[in-house]
């Protein structure tokens, strides 16, 4: 088991290094610079001063080495657009906000999604199935910006205690959490339905039934447990996506999270912020995938990490 851990860890570091390098190269090969501003270009003298201030006047290879050194020390540097916060500070402030929304959304998706899928499978081609599949088709196909706008227009505008947007109190988080949850909820429900249907047709379910075990027990102990496996396997990406925030949802609801940085940093060519959020996201994603792999071995008795394992 520990051997496996060490190997995975080493792999993760290499993956991270590759991501950093590719991002660095891509970022610097895109035209533009961090100091351009809509309608206002800056004179050459000022531009040169700025390049010097942020060390962008050095050759790229040198910048790359300096950058690698800083990452190892967990220092992402200064944002080129903000003179107020460093990239570390921006991530430290934005991530808890995004993560809170993400966790709430995850909770909603994990409670409703599997239930919806399981019910749909149990009542295949009957009324509950149709309802559940309509919900998940809406969830998968309606883009989040439409959903967000819809929620603001028809829910927030009519319900007094639900704010239209902004941040500060818990009630600010309700609508964005739901908007964020819809997509994973729908994905989970659909996945659950199909895997549940497959499991219900298996021989061991028939065996269980014929042994006279109660219907509830058969469904919960045998069907759901096996059907949930594919759902667990997509959780890694789902969780990391939810945790780091969504650009669209955060923009629409005015949420001061991490999600906005992903798009804005690229638009602004804020090099340090681009690298900061990329590395951070990569770390979250890699860790989540790792956790899911471990989780898989615990749930599914057929998968073993090592021969001696359990």
């Amino acid at each position: 088991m520990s051997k496996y851990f060490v190997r995975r860890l080493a792999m993760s570091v290499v993956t991270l290094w590759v991501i950093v390098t590719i991002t660095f190269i891509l970022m610097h090969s895109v035209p533009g610079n961090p100091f351009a501003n809509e309608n206002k270009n800056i004179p050459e003298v000022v531009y040169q001063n700025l390049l010097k201030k942020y060390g962008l006047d050095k050759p790229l290879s040198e910048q790359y080495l300096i950058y690698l050194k800083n990452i190892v020390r967990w220092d992402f540097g200064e944002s080129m657009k903000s003179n107020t916060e460093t990239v570390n500070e921006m991530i430290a402030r934005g991530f808890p906000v995004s993560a809170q929304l993400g966790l709430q959304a995850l909770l909603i998706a994990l409670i409703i999604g599997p239930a919806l899928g399981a019910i749909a499978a149990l009542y295949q081609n009957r009324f509950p199935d149709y309802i559940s599949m309509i919900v998940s088709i809406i969830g998968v196909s309606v883009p989040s910006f439409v959903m967000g706008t819809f929620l603001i227009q028809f829910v927030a505008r009519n319900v007094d205690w639900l704010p239209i947007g902004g941040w500060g109190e818990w009630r600010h988080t309700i609508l964005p959490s739901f908007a964020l949850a819809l997509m994973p909820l729908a994905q989970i429900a659909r996945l659950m339905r199909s895997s549940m249907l497959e499991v219900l047709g298996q021989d061991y379910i028939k065996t269980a039934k014929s042994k006279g075990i109660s219907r509830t027990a058969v469904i919960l102990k045998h069907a759901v447990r096996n059907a949930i496996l594919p759902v667990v396997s997509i959780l890694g990406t789902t969780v990391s996506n939810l945790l780091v925030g969504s650009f669209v949802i955060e923009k629409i609801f005015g949420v001061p999270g991490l999600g906005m940085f992903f798009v804005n940093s690229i638009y602004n060519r804020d090099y340090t912020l681009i690298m900061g959020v990329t590395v951070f996201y990569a770390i979250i994603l890699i860790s989540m995938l790792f956790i899911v792999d471990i989780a898989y071995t615990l749930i599914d008795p057929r998968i073993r990490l090592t021969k001696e394992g359990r």
Partner: protein
Amino acid sequence: MSKKFIILTSLILVLAIIFTGCSSPSNEGKDPAGNNQTAGGKKILRSNNSSEPGSLDPALAQGTHESWILENVFEGLMTFDENGELVPGMAESYEISEDGLTYTFKIRDGVTWSNGDPVTAEDFEYTWKRALDPELAADYAHILYYIKGAQAYNSGEGSRDDVAVKALDEKTLEVTLEAPTAYFLELTAFYTYFPVNKNVVESNPDWAKDPETHVSNGPFKLVRWDHNAKIVLEKNESYYNADKIKLDGIELDIIEDQNTAWQKYEGGEYHILVDVPTSVVAQLKAQNDPQLNIGNQIGTYYYNVNPDVKPFNNAKVRQALSMAIDCETITENITQGGQIPAEGVVPYGLKDENGNEFRDGVGSLVEYDPDKAKQLFEEGLAEEGMTLEEFNSGQFVILYNTSESHKKIAQAVQEMWRTALGIEIGLENVEFQVKLDREKAGDYQISRGGWIGDYMDPMTILDLWWSESAFNDVKYNNEEYDKLIAESKATDDQNIRMENMRKAEKMIMEDMAVIPIYFYTQPYVVKENVSGITYVPVRYPMITYADIAE
């Protein structure tokens, strides 16, 4: 359900919580009833600042998302009063030497910083030199280049001591300019010229990052800054003109999405909103809604025509392109924000030597005449030895930065040219930064351009096409034009300046170096119970003197 599954699910959740650093958002719980607390009998103006300020240090500010706040918390030597007139602010009086080069400001008695320190002439000297320090690398340092020795110091060639701004004593500030600058007084009301407290800045370089340590000298002071979420200003009781300030505070959300901000305004959460969605402006305008105000901005939307590409080097071709565009149709049916069809490059709102509209003194230099356009175009093509077929096979495109409104305008222009001149021009949208790069490299035929002025003088626009200007995208190079601009910059005789600038504008429009489309406007909405909002063309609507009726 399997125990293991429950354990696992909780494991993932717990790990996720650990990742979040176990902290709930810092602003949660800090001020849960904040809105209600402040609403009790106090006049708090609420609005939205569309983007997070990069810095609330005046020297490092870059644009409207910072200036709207800075203009309320700082005050320069001159300032704008409740009628939008330029009046002495931190300065009580000023004297200008005969030659128009030396300005001597007397600092007002008893003006203080929000921490109690007196505002001194030395603070100004320190501030301006600091903003020019090449190591600080201020984006807007160039707006200080009017001061003698400023550019040299900023470029690293001159020395700090040679910047000609000097505190003669605690209350007297002497500034010497490179050349007489008729609008220098107004510049001292621009945010880069706002003073900072020398002692505070020297002892704490991070002073501007935290409301606790932020020190300012304006009508309001910064009390809270939740990044990307909210900014709260409170009335500065020690401000010398505090009687004129009716508000007890200003609360600004930071919401980037225009529609969300509009929903909040409509839902009654804001008193004023500046960044209004275009479709809403059009609708309010059609309904003649009294909440809608449209201010003239000092800015022009135009198309650059690359003179290095044949046949755009021919003035007749460029004139024909301009003449074939019906600017009124564009402003009426596409932009719909009350924009004014262009009559030249200099927009409305700027005064000439007699206090009249500069624009009216020049008259309209843009005409819409498809027939004449066709004729000119054919002549121009013939002069270049080109046929219409050759032109159409040239695969010329209009280059614009990706945006719905730029696209619609480009499509309209494309169609107008097709109908009037029978030419086929394609459209190409790229990201803003890519467009800048390509313009710089001359890799375009026609590109969308725009400019918003910094100060209230026609020079803020005409300076763009001076041959050495950094912003001269079309690389317009006309000795006569340069001479006119140089002469206007070297004198403070308004008669000569204005006459020269009128000639310069006529010259550039005769050459049609750029094709003007419309003059920008600044639409904003104000609730009916709010009064005292003033509009100064180079600024965001001023909320400093606003009042709210119950």
